[in-house]
């Protein structure tokens, strides 16, 4: 078992208390899945009371490493040391007993349970006879909530809570189990910029209370803002450590393995006539909810309109309505004065609409089909790929060869199953298919989600090229960075409503507030007052920051009085 000892990490004044603080070491961790090496002799040392960031691209092996650490996977080789002693975790239970907690990227919460039930699960306190003692759990939740200013109702159902609060429940879950090392796996992926700032503050608070944090991310800005140490992982290997003061470009090139140009070179837009118009569009979900609620906008030829918003605010339904995939659509969608509402998907595609769906493996590709076949999914029945009822495989392969070269798809052959490709290459296949015919409208939903940085650069260039070619382009992205990078105009959706359309170059903070439902005018006004209140030295003008500092101070004062068992 672990002996308590006085913390050696950075701590606040109160050193009289004995707090268990862990030093965590991963030595030579290797994890293979068949022939795939997900982790290759990884060494990481997490010092007590530090925020240690694992930086790497999607698919670099960060999550695998953490699943090994959390006992979900057994390492093929290597060992884990807790306070210098080797340990073996046969399951998450062992890891939790050793003081390691994890907040998964996809929350591990049971939607129909209350907060208290979720927190209690697996570490239940019981009365005689195995009866649950949820009061005890409620008390613990209250205690932690008060300490960190979480404001979580123990009796609320998880499914009724916003994502940000759900994440706090996950953190509470770990803290109730006395986690001394908290692993956060891509925690900001689902949050608004404001929620993200609050999370970063929570992380700082946790640190000041002696909890070490392993922060897994590929977002450089957040990593720089909060980390003490950064370990960069590329293709399953540690490629080096960096300090948070390193520049974004340095970190990015370490992450990718070559110099990358993070800013997209794009000529100013040259908008022409507005050929795509959406008027009073409403989409009604099977639940009766208006998931897209009476929105109108238009896109000009040679312009990129980006639809921003937190996931689940109607973006999916909007794109699906344009494609003809939604049933209950009211209003009108005009492309070159042609009505698209009520037309079949095939009609819409033939009208010259290119569409990159948000989930390529679900809607964009058929994984078991070859790359060549996937490249003609929308035109399999047209010349030159088909004549009458027969297909022409030679033409299909020939087409594949051209597209693969043109879009730099890294594959030995076009006849391989599309599912075997990496995320970035899969996305290139989808993009190649959709851009390979003359378009009158191009829609790309989450064009670079789960795609490596190298491919992002490429895909972004292609999107801009399509714009410069004179096509109206609509981008849907939940990544604010991407939106700001690509857009000529930005439309923000919130709960199915169009909050407003703002020009490119609008500040991140304004967009963030709009994503939370504020109109552009009040968002501007709000950030203006905030900017006056904060010192610009910080460089990040946020709504939550100054307030959070005062709460963390109060929380620190609370913590002095409570006993930690």
């Amino acid at each position: 078992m672990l002996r308590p000892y006085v913390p050696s990490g950075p701590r606040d004044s109160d050193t009289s208390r004995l707090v268990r603080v862990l030093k965590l070491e991963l030595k030579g961790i290797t994890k293979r899945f068949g022939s795939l090496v997900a982790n290759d002799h990884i060494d990481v040392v997490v010092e007590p009371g530090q925020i240690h960031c694992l930086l790497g691209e999607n698919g670099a092996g960060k999550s695998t490493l953490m699943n090994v650490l959390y006992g979900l996977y057994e390492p093929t080789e290597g060992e884990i040391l807790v306070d210098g002693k080797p340990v073996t975790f046969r399951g998450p239970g062992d890891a939790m007993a050793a003081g390691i907690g994890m907040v998964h990227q996809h929350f591990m919460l049971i939607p129909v349970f209350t907060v208290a039930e979720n927190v209690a699960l697996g570490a239940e306190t019981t009365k005689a006879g195995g009866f649950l003692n949820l009061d005890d759990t409620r008390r613990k939740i209250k205690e932690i909530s008060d300490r960190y200013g979480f404001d979580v109702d123990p009796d609320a159902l998880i499914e009724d809570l916003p994502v940000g609060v759900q994440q706090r429940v996950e953190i509470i879950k770990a803290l109730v189990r006395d986690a001394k090392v908290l692993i956060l796996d891509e925690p900001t992926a689902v949050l608004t910029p404001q929620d993200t700032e609050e999370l970063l503050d929570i992380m700082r608070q946790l640190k000041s209370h002696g909890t070490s944090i392993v922060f897994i991310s590929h977002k450089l800005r957040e990593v720089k803002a909060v980390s003490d140490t950064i370990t960069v992982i590329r293709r399953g290997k540690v490629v080096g450590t960096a300090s948070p003061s390193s520049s974004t470009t340095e970190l990015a090139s370490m992450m990718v393995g070559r110099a990358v140009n993070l800013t997209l070179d794009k000529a100013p837009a040259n908008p022409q006539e507005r050929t795509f118009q959406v008027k009073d569009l409403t989409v009604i979900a099977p639940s009766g909810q208006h998931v897209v609620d009476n929105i109108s906008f238009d896109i000009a030829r040679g312009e990129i309109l980006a639809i921003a918003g937190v996931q689940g605010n109607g973006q999916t339904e909007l794109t699906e309505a344009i494609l003809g995939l939604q049933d209950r659509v009211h209003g009108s969608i005009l492309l070159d004065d042609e009505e698209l509402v009520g037309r079949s998907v095939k009609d819409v595609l033939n009208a010259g609409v290119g569409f990159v769906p948000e989930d390529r493996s679900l809607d964009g590709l058929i994984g078991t089909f070859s790359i060549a076949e996937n490249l003609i999914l929308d035109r399999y029945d047209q010349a030159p790929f088909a004549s009458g009822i027969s297909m022409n495989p030679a033409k299909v392969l020939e087409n594949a060869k051209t597209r693969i070269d043109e879009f730099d798809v890294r594959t030995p052959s076009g006849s391989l199953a599309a599912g075997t490709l990496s995320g970035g290459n899969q996305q290139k296949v989808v993009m190649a298919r959709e851009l390979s015919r003359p378009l009158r409208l191009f829609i790309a939903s989450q064009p670079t989600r789960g795609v490596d940085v190298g491919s992002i650069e490429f895909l972004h260039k292609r999107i801009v090229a399509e714009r410069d070619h004179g096509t109206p382009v609509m981008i849907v992205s939940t990544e604010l960075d991407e939106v700001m990078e690509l857009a000529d105009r930005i439309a923000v959706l919130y709960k199915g409503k169009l909050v407003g359309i703002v020009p490119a170059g609008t500040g991140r903070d304004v967009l963030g507030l709009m994503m939370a439902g504020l109109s552009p005018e009040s968002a501007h006004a709000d950030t203006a007052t905030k900017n006056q209140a904060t010192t610009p030295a910080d460089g990040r003008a946020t709504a939550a920051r100054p307030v959070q500092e005062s709460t963390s101070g109060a929380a620190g004062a609370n913590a002095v009085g409570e006993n930690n068992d």
Partner: protein
Amino acid sequence: MSTTATSPVPGPGKSGQGKSGQATPQPDTNHKPAQSGKPVTWKLPVTLAVLAVVAFIFFGLLGPQGSAKFGVSSGGDFFQLPAIEVPAFLSGIVLSVILLVLAGYALALKANRNRRPPRWLPAVFTVIFVVAFLIWVVGGARTPSISLAGLIAGSVTLAVPIVFGSLSGVLCERAGVVNIAIEGQLLGGAFTAALVASLTHNPYAGLLAAAVAGALVSMVLALFSIKYVVNQIIVGVVLNVLVSGLTGFLFSTVMQSDKAKYNSPGRLPIIDIPVLSGIPVIGPILFKQSVVGYLMYVAVIVIWIGLFKTKWGLRVRAVGEHPQAADTLGIKVNATRFWNVTLGGAVAGIGGSFFTLVAIDSFTKEISGGRGFIALAAMILGRWNPIGAFFAALLFGFADNLQSIVTIIGTPVPSQFMAMLPYVVTVFAVAGLVGRSRPPAADGIPYVKG
């Protein structure tokens, strides 16, 4: 087509607001959808309206002119209540008008305020409908008199195996394994109970053996669906056919060869609790039962408490809702599922013993007669809740019993129509008309790590 982005709309929520010292413009807090969760549909109001109109025409306008007499007390009761006699036509009109009003209220709620009717409404509607139906049936019979006590006691008796079966279903599906094999578990229990009780001359040994047999059938289901990840529906169906064939074969080869030795289990005695069993109507139901009958009440309550009030239950439900989450908290998902399915089988096995140790004292082919499937419907109608399943099973038992009583007293309604009733109720139940029924999220989905 992807429908990923419909549910929880992440907003600023409670964070950020309130903590801010400055007067932040509140980001859209009044936009709280009134119909959170399930949509309000026309399904329920329209169904109620149709039923009410049917009731008005048949039970009301075309109702019998005589009177219907319902006996309340039976001979053995320690005090006697007078029989209730109602004029059939008049009460038919009155009750069906009440039904029309209720249906109208539901329609108006939906039309004007887009709200679903209050929870009590469908329940009250059902009760009144059933009463009107009873009066109509009895009033039109050749001998317009039935014993209410007998009707209800008979319903409970017929419901016993269905209750056990549905409890088995609840135990399995709450842990995330679909149990189509309830029928096989009942049948296996019935057969084994008869065989073991005959051989040992001890019906209690038969009862125990039935539980073991049900558990064994269930273990096959558990093994294939959990360890070998075979489609759970298919394993269940195959098990039903297997048990049916196996018991049928053993019945005709072994049991028929020496009926006295292999197929005369003897009955479990009816345990009559003095005084209490003399209470009219509810006395015989609660206090004049065989061991199996008493076990039924115990099982319903114990399983309900177990599932919703204990650590075990919390874990079982977690495994059925989100196995991965349970796994990350150190709960052994597949072991939990395995033992729950096994336990469910044992419960169903005990239910099966009712056929051969209480109802009839011998085994015949297919003695369970499809009640395992009715039990499945009872579980759904009872919303995967032991108590709900119990009452749903009672409803099926009632329909079953009514059919035989109606045949005896001789009504103009063909008995085939009555025989249809349980299945009509089942269809309505499974169609989800009766209200929101949401199965455990991971029901039927195998959990494979990694």
